[in-house]
């Protein structure tokens, strides 16, 4: 008994230690997390450059790195190996957790990192064959010795950093999740690239299009999806003629009607994936040299998707933004040329209905015979749970997903399971790293074109300008040669006429060099006029941004960097200009209250710019959404997915015939006219704004209503930048809205002395405890650009030591 007090005290202490070392739900283990030396406190950055090693294992020669005033690293190496090794090391040093999270996501391993809540996401990644695709890319890279050497050098650099870490140096997120980094491999680089393909080239509406076709009929499809908008100004000017015969393909006589036109989750293409780029030739600029500009619109996160870097070694000197996990510069410039990208919404993902011989699924019917399947066992490890085994069947089309048959819809009448195979560009062997390797070294137009031949997915509009004075744009990627409308609906997996029958030859890709109009541009709109001989797709972005850019560039002369900067920040809404005057005509003002009439009057005076201090964009945006919904809701009230018309097509329809058949709400007795609908939707929009933002006041400013929030990748509270008062809009060149928008703004002025400016909403460091975590957000928000320090040679000692704040450089020498 005399030891009892001691025993109790000891037990209490041990229980305390156990409680403090255990993760409770999402709460990290508090002992290690709060430890002032090893816990999160260690990430509170005080000396950003204190842990620079003098020596790194595996380097072949000495390397110099200069960190500029925004902490952008400028790497001066003496060979390619060391260059990409250092890129890997530096990216890991600044963004290790982000690199890992992206590749865990691509590999379907998030539940391993976080837990059971992410199993569905992981299962989808596996069933979509993400790892299969990455493995194809690794095999392809291994065939090309110098590419493979880069993959390996990059991995070695990442691992050198990981291996140098003591647990207390692990990035904050590892401490929050109670996890540790794992070694990097070339497969992870490939996975990262597949993740980009999933973000940018996984859009498809095969199922909903099949449904829409069955439900509304072919005339509806023609009206809303086939015809180009009358204001569409395609990327390749309509004046361009095509002096070739297309490679023929055989097409089926009738279009396959799938068993289910239901229930596969269409990939949610996040709004905000869309971008602008352009280049103007020297005869339109003040400097007489071309100027190139690019702003890729993506989901905005902290840390940012981009990492700015300069890479200098014999044979290469390039600057721009890179992706976390991939060697090379993706968007940028070198001493002779500049390039940028926007996404191409070509249809490179198709679903095929598969007929299996029996439940064993060892054979499937295709081309008049039973063909063998292969199986891939997927093990999804779940943190704190049992491993889930998922067997994925592969046909020659690709991996198969089982479609859950819904709740007994007669039209489909499917009681048996239904299987869809995925044919997707991401499964084709490709080597995009090689494309960027060559692009980073390109000296002229021909070398740019040659570099692009190695690039396959996600397809991009590659804009180009050179110091020699050329401007160009290639709609670049690998495109299946399809018959008109192929893969727009669910395809017949048994009929070889639905297979991809080859590729559009490279020389037939839409492209243009030095057009007469003196500029090239793209804003995700349709690539070409309808006379282009090949079918690519029908889901391009609305015409608005593209038309605005082209009109502005046509008007401009003696263009300077400031003009380009103004265009990047252009908030003009073609959408509002097109439809608002009609809406104001339709609205019955006599049924409005005095304050509502005042609001309508303010819309009359609006100049259609989505500027932050204006209230009109807030009202128009909400009014239009309500009207759009009021028109479609009755027809689209179905329990299976349907494809809704794009914004600009509906606008066009309303302008052509404001009382066309969909306007009436068929669920009511009376016949609603557009005037009824416009008035009711205005009142609803007005009431909603009152509810969310209070009475008509500055709180209705578009700057707030735009709801611009940049969250941390894991959505963790406290790690984001919220409520950023901003202008912009989905239909404006400055496509800021919600949590999406210009993820990197860049302007490059070519010439003997290349000049460049850029900004992205974030900072070099991924550490929330660093001032450089979000240091550029304010400049990004207000449309400022930083002049980019592009050094032809290592900066001089005097520059390094100059005390001038704007030109602070930290020099880091590393020995092998």
């Amino acid at each position, binding site marked *: 008994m005399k030891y009892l007090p001691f025993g109790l*005290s000891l037990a209490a202490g041990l229980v305390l230690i156990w409680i403090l070392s255990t993760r409770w739900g999402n709460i990290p283990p508090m*002992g290690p997390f*709060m430890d002032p030396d090893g816990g999160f406190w260690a990430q509170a*950055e005080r000396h950003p450059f204190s842990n620079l090693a003098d020596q790194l294992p595996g380097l072949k020669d000495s390397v110099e790195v200069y960190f500029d005033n925004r902490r952008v690293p400028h790497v001066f190496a003496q060979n390619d190996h060391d260059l990409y090794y250092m890129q890997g090391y530096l990216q890991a040093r600044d963004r290790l957790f982000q690199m890992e999270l992206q590749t865990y996501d691509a590999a379907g391993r998030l539940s391993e990192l976080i837990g059971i809540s992410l199993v569905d996401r992981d299962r989808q990644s596996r069933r979509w064959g993400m790892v299969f695709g990455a493995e194809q890319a690794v095999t392809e890279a291994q065939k090309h010795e110098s590419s493979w050497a880069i993959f390996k050098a990059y991995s070695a650099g990442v691992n050198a950093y990981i291996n140098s870490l003591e647990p207390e140096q692990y990035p904050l997120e590892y401490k929050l999740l109670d996890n540790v980094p794992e070694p990097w491999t070339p497969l992870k680089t490939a996975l990262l690239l597949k993740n980009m393909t999933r973000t940018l080239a996984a859009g498809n509406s095969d199922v909903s299009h099949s449904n829409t076709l069955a439900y509304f009929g072919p005339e509806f499809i023609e009206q809303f999806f086939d015809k180009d908008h009358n204001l569409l100004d395609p990327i390749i000017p309509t004046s361009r003629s095509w002096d070739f015969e297309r490679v023929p393909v055989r097409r089926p006589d009738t279009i396959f009607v799938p068993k289910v036109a239901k229930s596969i989750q269409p990939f949610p293409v996040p709004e905000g994936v869309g971008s602008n780029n352009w280049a103007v030739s020297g005869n339109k600029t003040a400097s007489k040299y071309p100027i190139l500009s690019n702003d890729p619109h993506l989901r905005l996160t902290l840390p940012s998707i981009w990492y700015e870097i300069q890479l200098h070694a014999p044979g290469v000197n390039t600057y721009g933004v890179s992706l976390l996990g991939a060697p090379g510069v993706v968007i940028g410039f070198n001493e002779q040329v500049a390039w940028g990208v926007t996404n191409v919404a070509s249809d490179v993902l198709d679903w095929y209905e598969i007929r299996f011989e029996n439940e064993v699924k060892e054979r499937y019917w295709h081309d008049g015979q039973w063909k063998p399947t292969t199986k891939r066992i997927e093990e999804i490890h779940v943190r704190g749970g049992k491993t889930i085994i998922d067997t994925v069947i592969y046909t020659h089309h690709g991996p198969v997903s089982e479609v859950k048959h819904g709740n007994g819809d007669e039209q489909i009448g499917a009681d048996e399971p239904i299987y869809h195979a995925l044919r997707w560009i991401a499964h084709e062997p490709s080597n995009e790293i090689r494309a960027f390797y060559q692009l980073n070294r390109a000296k002229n137009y021909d070398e740019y074109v040659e570099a692009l031949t190695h690039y396959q997915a996600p397809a991009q509009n590659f804009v180009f300008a050179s110091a020699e004075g050329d401007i160009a744009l290639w709609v670049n990627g690998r495109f299946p040669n399809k018959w008109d409308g192929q893969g727009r609906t669910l395809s017949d997996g048994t009929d070889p006429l639905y297979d991809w029958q080859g590729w559009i030859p490279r020389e037939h890709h839409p492209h243009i060099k030095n057009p007469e109009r003196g500029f090239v541009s793209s804003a995700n709109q349709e690539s070409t006029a309808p006379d282009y001989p090949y079918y690519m797709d029908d889901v391009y972005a609305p015409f608005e941004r593209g038309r605005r850019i082209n009109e502005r560039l046509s008007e401009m002369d003696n263009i300077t960097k400031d003009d380009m900067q103004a265009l990047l920040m252009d908030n003009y809404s073609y959408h509002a200009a097109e439809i608002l005057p009609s809406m104001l005509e339709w609205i019955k003002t006599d049924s409005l209250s005095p304050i509502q009439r005042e609001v309508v009057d303010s819309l009359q005076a609006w100049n259609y710019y989505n500027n932050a201090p204006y209230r009109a964009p807030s009202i128009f945006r909400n009014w239009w959404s309500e009207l759009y919904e009021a028109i479609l809701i009755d027809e689209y009230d179905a329990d299976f997915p349907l494809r809704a018309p794009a914004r600009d097509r509906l606008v066009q329809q309303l302008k052509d015939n404001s009382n066309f058949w969909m306007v009436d709400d068929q669920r009511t007795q009376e016949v609603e006219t557009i005037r009824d609908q416009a008035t009711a939707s205005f009142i609803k929009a007005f009431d909603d704004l009152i509810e969310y933002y209070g009475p008509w006041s500055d709180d209705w400013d578009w700057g707030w209503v735009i709801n611009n929030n940049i969250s941390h990748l894991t959505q963790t509270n406290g790690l984001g930048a919220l409520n950023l008062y901003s202008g912009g809009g989905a239909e404006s060149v400055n496509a800021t809205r919600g949590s999406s928008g210009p993820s990197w703004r860049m302007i490059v002025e070519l010439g003997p002395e290349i000049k460049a400016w850029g900004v992205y909403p974030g900072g070099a460091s991924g550490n*929330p*405890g660093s001032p450089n975590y979000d240091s550029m957000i304010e400049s990004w928000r207000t449309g400022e650009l930083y002049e980019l320090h592009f050094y032809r040679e290592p900066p001089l000692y005097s520059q390094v030591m100059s005390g001038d704040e704007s030109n602070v450089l930290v020099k880091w020498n590393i020995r092998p």
Partner: protein
Amino acid sequence: MIILFLLIAVNAFFLNLVLPWWSAALPGLFFGHRMNVTPILAFGMGFFAVFLAWGAHALYIHVASAAVLSARISELFGLTQDWILIVITAVIGGLLSGFATLTSLLLAQSRNKK
């Protein structure tokens, strides 16, 4: 007595620089049994010694890093004031040390009871 208090505080601070978080318990275990005080006082001395060591360390980092991270972590935990985060840090270290000191003292007392 004040010397033991200081020994615990100083040792806890330095041990934490080289050992993981639970090292906050070690000085209490080592010095606790040399105390000639009531158990409650022993716990209190152990607690406040490391409360001070960890609290001062956290406070220093908070100030030296211009509160960039502590503000974010406070928001993450839903705390309204940054200083609460420093107090939580200090209390965790303090509790570890308090129980360790108490345990050490009680063991010694139990043995002496023979």
